[in-house]
């Protein structure tokens, strides 16, 4: 179970390594096969339950669900095996549970709250599959399928996805390396170290034309070649797991469900470029991720896949896990390196690039979790297979995280070139509360808006470049008609301003200036002064120039991209800005200072609730009499709107 490193007996290890290097052969040790089958759960004696145990699932109630399952099993005196897994990536279905009865395919349900457990369990135990909360059945391999039960990959959220990196998420126990190995994990590494030279790995990566997933899409092999071309005595490889774009959670989901895929990628990259030390830089607040990475690295070390003279090959490599303090700018590679060196996390000018002079002045390869996770697939299945999906210039798949007003949230893995409209309409099942979509912010706080007219864009580097958009790390935040773009921009600008390291002037002072100008647009001044309107207009006229200069002159990507959402919003939502600016009204009714509420006299029955809840005493009325709001006192907090059970309070 969780946290315990399951020891594989020393007798089995040589056989296991042989199997990993050569694949299944006639002479494969039977003990190994049994071990693998056990970890694949293709042969089970007792019903097996898979409960999602990630931070987001815990928030959705997985702990209570797990307890309910245990209680239920105890009350029935049933022997149940419980496996704690990571998430499938389907956040709207949390907490997800998987039920596998001996000899049958695995069934996934979600969301399953604690009160639903006994009903569900009893039904499944009687071989009856309730349709409520059913996600689908999943083919374990060689098991009897449930008749009439749809497959998981046909579920709207999963349909159309090409789950390669995520294929084992929610399936395996992230804290058991044997689970990963049972499904073919570390095969690529053992194969490489036994049969491939460094150059061959680089060639494979080059042939796959895999591009960095961190935003700019720099070809990974080029970066590798740069590191290899140096003559340093020590090289480093760093896995950037400090994902912190608002609305991005792909790496967290990936690492919580399957830390090994990134670790294997790190090991392969290290082998290819001849690095002796690998560092995974994550942040201390991602406690689940940190635990699982630590546990995984320990287990890999115990198997002898990292350490001195790995498998007798002469190649030595070890992995350290470093917990960052949680600064957005530390996702920038030079700032990340400074942070690892024990310095203040501030970017430095490039060139020299980290590939030439990185950590402690040594050549350093920095990739993010997703990029590294591609490497085992490429090495294992070959570049041709890898390139079989995706587009000409963007091969393979890409993770996207859906946030904002989507109907369904989660992490999806789709091939490059997937149409955005399909993603929003089919996978995410449209907009929440059947509202109209306005735009999608792609690429986090340095990203740009894709307006709803352009939703037929393909999700790949080429199309995004053509449309002057930024793919970024892959976060997609949907805005609908009830979201205010000006408010969002102001919020993002404040985020950038707070997270700016403060080193270079344009980013530090410029983002502050922009944040203050935007703040004036969405707020009313506390005291009305004569010049306020003048200052507001004066500020807005500067916005464009300011944004341009900040983008052109900033030191790192944080500053360079700081003005992107603003410029793109000015392009798409000019009317909204003008409404805020000239009429001092927020059309979406989001900006607190620029909205006011009215009570519909025909609906109001004088229930008195809004009267008692109003923090400003802005509502007059007595019981069973129609209430009214005094506009001068109303601060637009929206409390009355929230509490009215009869929908009598409207935004004016």
């Amino acid at each position, binding site marked *: 179970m969780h946290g315990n490193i399951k020891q594989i007996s020393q007798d089995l290890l040589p056989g296991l390594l042989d199997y990993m290097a050569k694949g299944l052969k006639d002479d494969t040790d039977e003990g190994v096969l049994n071990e693998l089958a056990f970890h694949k759960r293709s042969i089970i004696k007792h019903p097996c339950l898979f409960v999602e145990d990630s931070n987001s699932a815990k928030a959705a109630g997985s702990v209570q669900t797990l307890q309910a399952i245990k209680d239920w099993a105890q009350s029935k005196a049933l022997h149940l095996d419980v496996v704690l897994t990571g998430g499938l990536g389907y956040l709207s279905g949390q907490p997800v549970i998987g039920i596998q009865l001996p000899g049958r395919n695995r069934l996934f349900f979600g969301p399953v709250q604690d009160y639903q457990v006994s009903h569900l369990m009893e039904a499944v135990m009687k071989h009856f599959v309730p349709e409520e909360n059913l996600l689908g059945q999943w083919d374990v391999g060689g098991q009897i399928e449930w008749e009439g039960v749809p497959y998981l990959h046909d579920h709207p959220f999963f349909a159309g996805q090409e789950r390669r990196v995520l294929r084992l998420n929610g399936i395996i126990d992230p804290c058991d390396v044997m689970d990963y190995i049972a499904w073919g994990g570390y095969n690529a590494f053992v194969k490489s170290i036994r049969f491939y030279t460094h150059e061959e790995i680089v060639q494979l990566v080059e042939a796959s034309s895999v591009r960095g997933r961190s935003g700019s899409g720099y070809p990974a092999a080029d970066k590798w070649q740069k590191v290899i071309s140096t003559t340093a005595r020590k090289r480093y490889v760093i896995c950037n797991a400090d994902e912190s774009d608002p609305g991005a959670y792909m790496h967290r989901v990936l690492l919580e469900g399957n830390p090994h895929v990134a670790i294997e990628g790190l090991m392969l990259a290290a082998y290819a470029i001849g690095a002796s030390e690998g560092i995974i830089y994550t942040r201390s607040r991602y406690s689940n991720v940190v635990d699982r990475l630590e546990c995984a690295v320990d287990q890999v070390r115990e198997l002898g896949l990292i350490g001195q003279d790995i498998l007798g090959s002469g190649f030595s490599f070890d992995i350290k896990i470093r917990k960052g303090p949680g600064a957005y700018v530390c996702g920038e590679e030079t700032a990340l390196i400074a942070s690892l060196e024990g310095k203040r996390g501030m970017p430095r*000018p490039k060139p020299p690039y980290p590939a030439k002079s990185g950590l402690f002045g040594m050549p350093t390869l920095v990739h993010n979790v997703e990029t590294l996770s591609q490497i085992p697939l490429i090495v294992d299945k070959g570049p041709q297979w890898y390139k079989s999906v995706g587009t000409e210039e963007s091969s393979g798949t890409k993770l996207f995280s859906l946030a904002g007003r989507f109907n369904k949230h989660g992490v999806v893995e789709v091939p490059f070139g997937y149409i955005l409209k399909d993603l929003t309409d089919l996978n995410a099942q449209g907009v929440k509360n059947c509202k109209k979509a306005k735009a999608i912010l792609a690429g986090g706080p340095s990203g740009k808006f894709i307006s709803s007219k352009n939703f037929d864009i393909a999700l790949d580097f080429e199309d995004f470049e053509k449309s002057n958009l930024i793919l970024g790390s892959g976060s997609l935040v949907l805005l609908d008609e009830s979201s205010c773009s000006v408010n969002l921009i102001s919020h993002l600008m404040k985020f950038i301003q707070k997270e700016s390291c403060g080193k*270079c*002037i344009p980013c530090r*002072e410029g983002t*502050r200036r922009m944040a203050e100008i935007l703040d004036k647009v969405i707020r009313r001044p506390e005291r009305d002064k004569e010049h306020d309107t003048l200052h507001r207009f004066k500020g807005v006229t*500067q916005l464009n120039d300011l944004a341009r200069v900040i983008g052109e002159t900033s030191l790192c990507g944080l500053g360079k991209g700081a003005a992107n959402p603003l410029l793109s919003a000015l392009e798409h939502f000019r009317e909204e800005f003008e409404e805020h600016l000239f009429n001092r009204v927020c059309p979406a009714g989001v900006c607190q200072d620029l909205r006011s509420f009215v009570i519909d006299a025909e609906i109001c029955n004088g229930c008195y609730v809004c009267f008692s809840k109003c923090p400003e005493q802005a509502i007059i009325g007595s019981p069973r009499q129609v209430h009214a709001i005094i506009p001068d006192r109303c601060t637009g907090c929206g409390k009355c709107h929230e509490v009215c059970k009869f929908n009598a309070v409207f935004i004016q």
Partner: protein
Amino acid sequence: MQIEIEVNGQILKTRKGDILLSVLNQNGIRVPTLCSMEGFPPTGACRLCIVEVEGMADLVPACSYPVEEWMKVNTHSARVIQARRTIVELLISNHPDECLYCFQNKHCELQKLATELNVMERKGRTRQFTRKIDRSSPSIIHDASKCVLCGRCIRICDHQRVSALEFISRGTEMRVGTVGDKGLSSSDCISCGQCIRVCPTGSLQEKGHLDELISHLHQKQQQVIALVDPAVMVSIGDELGFRSGKDVSGLLFSALRKIGFDQVHSGSESVDITMFQAARLWKHTATKGPGPSLISFCPSWMQYIENLRPDLMSCVLPVLSPAQTFGRLIKDINTNSYIVYFSPCVGSKMESQKAEHQKEGIPYLNSVMSTRELIQLIQLFGIDFDRINNEVPDSLLNSVPMSRLLSSLSGGYMEGLMKAISVVDPDNYSLDGNKAKFRGPKSCKKNIMLHYTIEQKWTACSTLDEGINLIDQSMQSKYPELFEIMACPGGCINGGGQPGNKSDKVNKPRIKEIYDQDSELSGQISQLYAEVSKVSKKLPVLELKAKED
């Protein structure tokens, strides 16, 4: 590899890999910058040195970009100037409007930039941060509200191996501060004042005593006595309209008397006195066996030992610094005197405030003023240097001074000590046998001296970083070693209280003047020693106290 690049339509010859900014500067194209420092790696913080390079989407910072052959650079295109102006406007938007009352008025780099870029209106006023002015240090005032966060002070402080200053917080809350933001006095600051010299604005400044001095000059209740440090004499010429490096000591003495000082002394004399003090103790350092001994005349270096290396205290020659020696000698003769020490050093301000350098709560040196303050004083009293004549200083000794101005350079004390020893200990040491000299532009000068049959290594070093490394190495040395460490690069000539920037252009003539003035005196040294012996009998020894945390 020699390559050619095009800058503003003009072809420049350069080497591949050179930094663009230095190439531009060498060819007479000036690009503004707030954060770059000669001899330090670029940080790329201010973004004012941006230039337009054809084919690149963003503007490129010249300070950190290596030259490549395909480059076509435009250093002053409309786009570049607009960007620079915007950056300066952003800086000014929350800068306090205190130029008139600012210590750096007319010397401020931000002010200069704003004028150059024709910034004539404030485009917007962002929220100003009211930062508490840190007056806790006896020598340095830190006003964070005037800071432009260029990071120069932090870099120089790290370079000095003190690291008292550091960036605190991030984003718009970022500021320069000390450990725990508790103020300079509780930090490891050694008051070398190098941060003041690199600060582009008036954020870091020395603690001034001008008003206090003026009232003393006017009241005439006490005898006001001036002591002028040798380094000051060659450094004030520039500001008063003389050629750079001219020794104006004669005029200066005259001017100070006109201002109202009752006595004016040259610092060379007190240097000589301390030199003989040290020479008497020197024999011990050579015979004590392997290991370092340290000369103690730099107050900041002594503070460094107290703050950061108390383990070295036992190695220090217990001789007071020249100025403190002078203070004690004068106060012995004339208790009712007010001594003003004009010093190139900010560390002396700190030193004079220490309890061990006070008598009944009053410092031996009542006031320590920097070269900058001296210039202010001269201007305040309206002394016209063209219309006054050279005068000689008052004297404690009836003899020609030995070390003259040499003590203001790194290695100067070593040379002085050499001369002094040849008189104090003529049996064991002769000047002729040791022709080794401690001169030249190197930051570290090493020589092996002969004493009996024992060899002693002498090292004069003017960077703390290098000096401390050498001292640490000397712990394992088989020689006895003697170190003269100065906290400021090059010696007192680059002290924290000196005017102007620290460029070679300013310093070269000064250094030349100092070396030129030094002459060979052979017979007179023994006469000087006899004089010194008369006055220095009662002098106490230096005591060091480790800093309590």
